[in-house]
Structures are given as C-alpha cells and as structure tokens.
C-alpha cells in the first residue's frame, strides 16, 4: 500500500467513521447467515451465549473489513464506489484502521472461544486471516480468480454459527458454506460487468478486465449452474424440508434463467439499456441468498412446532 495516495487526516473522525470501517452492510449479511447457522443446528445455546456468538462473529467480520480497508486504501481512493470510505476520504488514518482491525480480531476470537467453543473460535480466526491476508493482500491483486477463492471468507459465518452450537463441522454446515461460496462469483461478476471502469482504474484483475466481458458472461452462467446442486442438496439434509425445496427450486430456476439472459447478451445490448439485466441479476442474487437462509429458518421453526419431516 502506498500511503502517499491516501489523503492526510484533515478532520476529527466521529464514531460513525470507525463504524464504517467495519463494513456494516457486509456485517448484516454475516449476522443473518451466522444466526441461521446457529438457529438451525440440532443443539441450542442458551440465550446470552447465542447472542454473544452472533455478536462476536459479526465483530470478527468487521475486524477483517477494517484490515481490508487499511490494506486497500490506495486502490479505494481510485474507485468511485469506494473513494468516500473513511480512509481514502481522509477522516481516519490507515494506522488507526490497522489498530482497530487487530484489536477487534483478538477480542472477537477470544470472546467467541469463551462464549462457545474453541473450534468455532478457530474457524473465526481462520476466516479473518483468510479475508485479510489470503484475499486482500494476496489474491485480490494477483489473479482474476480472486473472488472465487476469496468468497470462502464470506461463506464461513453460517458454518461458524453451526459449530458454535454443536462443537463440530457437519454435512449441513459444509453445504451452507458451499451455497455462499458458489453464489459469490456470479454475484460479484454481475457487479463487475456494470462497474468495470472502477476495477480497471484501480488495476484490480477482475475477470472483466483480464478476460473480457464475453468470458465473464460465460463464467456467470457456469458458476450459476454449478451452484444449483449445492443449493438443492440442502433440502434433503436434516435442516431442509418441503418449504426449503420449493423455495430453492423456484429461486434456482429464476437464477439460471437470469444467468442465461446475461450470457446471451452482448455489450451493445447491455449499453443500450444501461446494463438493466445485469443490475437486475445482481439485485436478485441478494434476494436469492436471503430467501434460501430464510427458508432454512422457516424449516427450523416448523420442526420446533412439530411439523418437521
């Protein structure tokens, strides 16, 4: 990272500037998926321990977000989407973000171990390491497969939630991981299709920059098709059921249709309607993930009411 490209702090940072370092929007997804992982597990934690588990998983995700912003400050300042973040905007010094990230990483891992168990804490520590070091420092700037492998960091929270409750990894936890892991590439590549200038300006080797948009469109379709079996398989595990299978079938069908529409388009068509299909696919991908995990939660509630299969 080159500090020269980051503006010097000119204003006194408020509390909100530090909260922004933790990427609250990403954190909300982490909280939701970790909560579902915890709630659908066959073993239930006591309320304060469960609340602590979610809180410290979210805090660990926030810590890795702060470390990511510290490392990426030099490219964040070049991208329209990220140039108003606390560090590139000059409200927080990079060193402050590093300190906050390291401190919160330690607190979240230790507290998760005390509140739940060592396996969950170990997984959280690995997730922070994976996102901050493997993804941010290594993959992001060196390979167009950055988000494919880096997506693992975002896929761990439901697994950590499950392990916090049960103490071990199971098939269900692995499939929840796989669902997010396989969902990440089409989600981000759809974003990259209509945000190409940003990544190109920053020199980040996104697939759209290195292999072109035609290949990216093909990859979106391939990964969407590969995602389907993982999403559907969850329906036949102990956390699935008829509600989940019905919801997943409809969502996956629509997701594949969206990916096929993206694949069939070329840049002339996309420019003509200002990437309407790509933007719609990106928005639907958020609904897709939220609805899958909501369906798992509904199944858990039904089971607790005696309607389980």
């Amino acid at each position: 990272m080159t500090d020269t490209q980051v503006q010097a702090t000119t204003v006194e940072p408020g509390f909100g500037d530090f909260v922004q370092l933790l990427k609250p929007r990403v954190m909300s997804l982490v909280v939701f998926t970790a909560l579902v992982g915890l709630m659908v597990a066959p073993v239930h934690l006591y309320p304060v321990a469960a609340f602590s588990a979610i809180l410290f998983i979210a805090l660990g995700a926030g810590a890795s977000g702060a470390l990511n912003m510290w490392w990426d400050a030099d490219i964040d300042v070049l991208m329209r989407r990220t140039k108003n973040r606390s560090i590139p905007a000059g409200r927080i010094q990079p060193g402050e973000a590093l300190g906050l990230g390291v401190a919160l990483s330690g607190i979240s891992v230790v507290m998760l171990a005390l509140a739940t168990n060592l396996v969950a804490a170990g997984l959280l520590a690995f997730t922070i390491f994976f996102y901050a070091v493997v993804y941010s420092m290594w993959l992001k700037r060196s390979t167009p497969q950055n988000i494919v492998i880096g997506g693992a960091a975002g896929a761990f929270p439901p697994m950590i939630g499950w392990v916090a409750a049960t103490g071990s990894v199971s098939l269900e936890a692995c499939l929840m991981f796989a669902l997010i892991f396989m969902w990440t590439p089409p989600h981000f590549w759809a974003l990259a299709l209509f945000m190409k200038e940003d990544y190109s300006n920053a020199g980040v080797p996104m697939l759209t920059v290195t292999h072109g948009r035609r290949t990216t469109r093909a990859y979106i379709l391939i990964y969407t098709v590969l995602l389907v079996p993982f999403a559907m398989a969850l329906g036949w595990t102990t956390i699935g059921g008829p509600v989940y299978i019905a919801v997943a079938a409809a969502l996956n069908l629509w997701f594949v249709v969206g990916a096929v529409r993206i694949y069939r388009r070329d840049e002339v068509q996309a420019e003509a309607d200002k990437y309407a299909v790509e933007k719609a696919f990106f928005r639907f991908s958020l609904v897709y993930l939220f609805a899958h995990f909501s369906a798992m939660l509904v199944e858990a509630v039904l089971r607790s009411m005696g309607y389980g299969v």
Partner: protein
Amino acid sequence: MSFKPEHEIHRRRFSRNLGVGLCLAAFVMLGFFLTVEKVTRGNPMNALQGKPFVAAPEAAP
C-alpha cells in the same frame, strides 16, 4: 447558556467518546450476563476444584 459556540470538532470528539463509552459499558454487561449464564446453567465446575465429575444426587421425592 454556553459562552463559546461548540465547534464541529468537539461534536465529533464527543460522539466518539460517547460511542466508545457505551461499547465498553455494553461489553462489561455482556461479560457479566455471560458469566451468570455459564455459572447457573453450565456443567458443574468440579474440574476447577480438582475433583472428578460426579453427577448431582437426585432430589428426594
């Protein structure tokens, strides 16, 4: 009535101090309630007393 108008810097500094203070207070409260839950609902802490685990005797009917 304040004689000196509050500067933007003071407002931002106050928000930071208040935020950190509330976070610390919440952390202490969480630690307290987590401890209460672990002690009252957790497994007997025989290991901490250097004794092997012995199940609690059944209550007399």
